[in-house]
C-alpha cells in the first residue's frame, strides 16, 4: 500500500485493457479518451505538463482547457520546459481556454479549431481538460451533450487523444465513479 503524496495518479482509457498509474513514458494511442484522477495542484501539473509537452513535441495541435488558475499553473511549468511556448500559442498549436458555457458551444469550439488546423495541414490533436472547470460552470445536462458529442463527433472523426483530469478534492465519490465508467464503457463493436 502506498499513500505518499505522489503527484502522478491514476488513469483509465477506453482502448487500453488495463488501468495504470501515469508516468512520462506511458504511450497513448490515437482515439483514446482517458480519465485521470489527481489530488493536488502538483498532481495536476504532473498529469498535464508531460501530456501537453509530448503533444507539442510530436507536432499535434493541443487544446488546454480549464479554469484560468489551473491552466496558468500548467503553462508556467510548460514555459520552463519549452522555449518556444509563446510561439506555440501565437501560431495556434497550443489553444488555451476556459470551458465554454454550453456543451454545444464547446463542441463547436473544438470543431472550428480542428477544422482550421486541418485546413492548414495539421491533423493530429490532443486535449487536456481540467474538469473542475466544467463542474463549476456547466450543468449536468450540458455535460451529457458535451460527452456524447465529443465521443460521437470528435473522437471518431479526427486523430485525437484526450485526457480529462478530475480533482478528487472537488468531485464526489459518485461523480468520480461516473467519470471512470464514462471513460471505460464504450460497448464492443
Amino acid at each position, binding site marked *: *500500500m502506498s499513500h505518499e503524496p505522489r503527484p502522478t495518479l491514476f488513469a*483509465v482509457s477506453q482502448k487500453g485493457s488495463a*488501468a*495504470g498509474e501515469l508516468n512520462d513514458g506511458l504511450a497513448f494511442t490515437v482515439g483514446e479518451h482517458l480519465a485521470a484522477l489527481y489530488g493536488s495542484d502538483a498532481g495536476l501539473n504532473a498529469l498535464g505538463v508531460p501530456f501537453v509537452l509530448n503533444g507539442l513535441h510530436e507536432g499535434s495541435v493541443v487544446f488546454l482547457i480549464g479554469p484560468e488558475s489551473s491552466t496558468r499553473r500548467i503553462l508556467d511549468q510548460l514555459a520552463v520546459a519549452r522555449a518556444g511556448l509563446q510561439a506555440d500559442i501565437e501560431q495556434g498549436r497550443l489553444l488555451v481556454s476556459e470551458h465554454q458555457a454550453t456543451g454545444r458551444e464547446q463542441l463547436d469550439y473544438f470543431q472550428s479549431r480542428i477544422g482550421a488546423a486541418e485546413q492548414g495541414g495539421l491533423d493530429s490533436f490532443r486535449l487536456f481538460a481540467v474538469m473542475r472547470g466544467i463542474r463549476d460552470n456547466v450543468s449536468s445536462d450540458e455535460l451529457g451533450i458535451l460527452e456524447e458529442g465529443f465521443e*460521437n463527433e470528435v473522437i471518431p472523426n479526427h486523430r485525437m487523444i484526450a485526457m480529462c483530469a478530475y480533482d478528487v478534492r472537488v468531485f*464526489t*465519490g459518485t461523480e*468520480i*465513479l461516473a467519470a471512470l465508467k464514462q471513460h471505460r464503457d464504450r460497448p*464492443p463493436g
Partner: protein
Amino acid sequence: MNDENELLDIAAAAAFLHVSETSLRRWTNSGRLACLRIGQKRERRFRRADLLAFMESQPGRPAAGTTNGERGNLAAARAYDISPGGKSHLCSLCSSDEGLINLASAFLQEGMREGSVCFVVGTPKVRQEIVRRLEKKSKSSRASLDADRVILSNYHATPQEQWDYFETRIREATRNGALSFRVFGDIWEIRKRTSAAAVLEYEEGYDQLIAKQFPVVTLCAYDVRKFEGVELLQALKGHPDIMRHPLDRFLA
C-alpha cells in the same frame, strides 16, 4: 426482483449493466438499446429483458443455457479470473446496494466454484443480502454455505484484532485442508466508526500481513456514496493489483 418485464429507471439500468447513464442515453438514441418513454418529460424506462438481450448481443456473451439470473450478473461474474491459490488484493467501487451485492456474490461464487474458503466481512444486513443472493444463484453456492466454507463476520474493533482473526482462521482452515481463500469486505463498516486514516492503516496492514502471506484473493468494496473522492483515490492507488485487470470489472 428478477421479473424480466420489470421497468428500471435509467440509474437502475446503468447499475444493472455497470455502465454510465450517458452511455445508456447514447445507445438508446442510436437505436442499439430499446427503452420505453413515460410521462411528460419522456423519461427512459428499461425492461430487464431488453438489458439482458443487449448484453447478450455483445461479444463475449454467456454460453447458451446460462440462466437469466446468472446473465444478469455476468459483467461481474466473469470479472475475477484469478487462478486458485493466487494472491491478489483488489478493490471495487460501487454506487448502489445492488451493485455491491452483485460484485460480492459474483466474486464469492467464483471462489466457491474453485473450492476456496470464503470470508464475508461487513454489517449483518450486507452479509444477509449477499448470502440470500448466493443461495439463489446455484446449488453449489448453497452447498458451500451449508458446509461452512463461507465464513461471515463483522469487522473487529481494531485493525490488529481483524488481522489476527484472519490469520487464525486461515491457518485453521489450512490445517483442515483448505488450499485457497477469498475475502470480501465492505470497507464502509470500518470507515463509519473510524476515519480515513484508520482505513488506510487497516488496508496497509492487511496487505502485508494477510494478502501477501496467504493464498488469498481479496476484494475490498468502497461505496462511492459514502467515501470522499480523496479516499477513493487512495483506495485505487492502494490496490495496485487491480491494474492487472480492466478497471470496469471493478466498477458497479
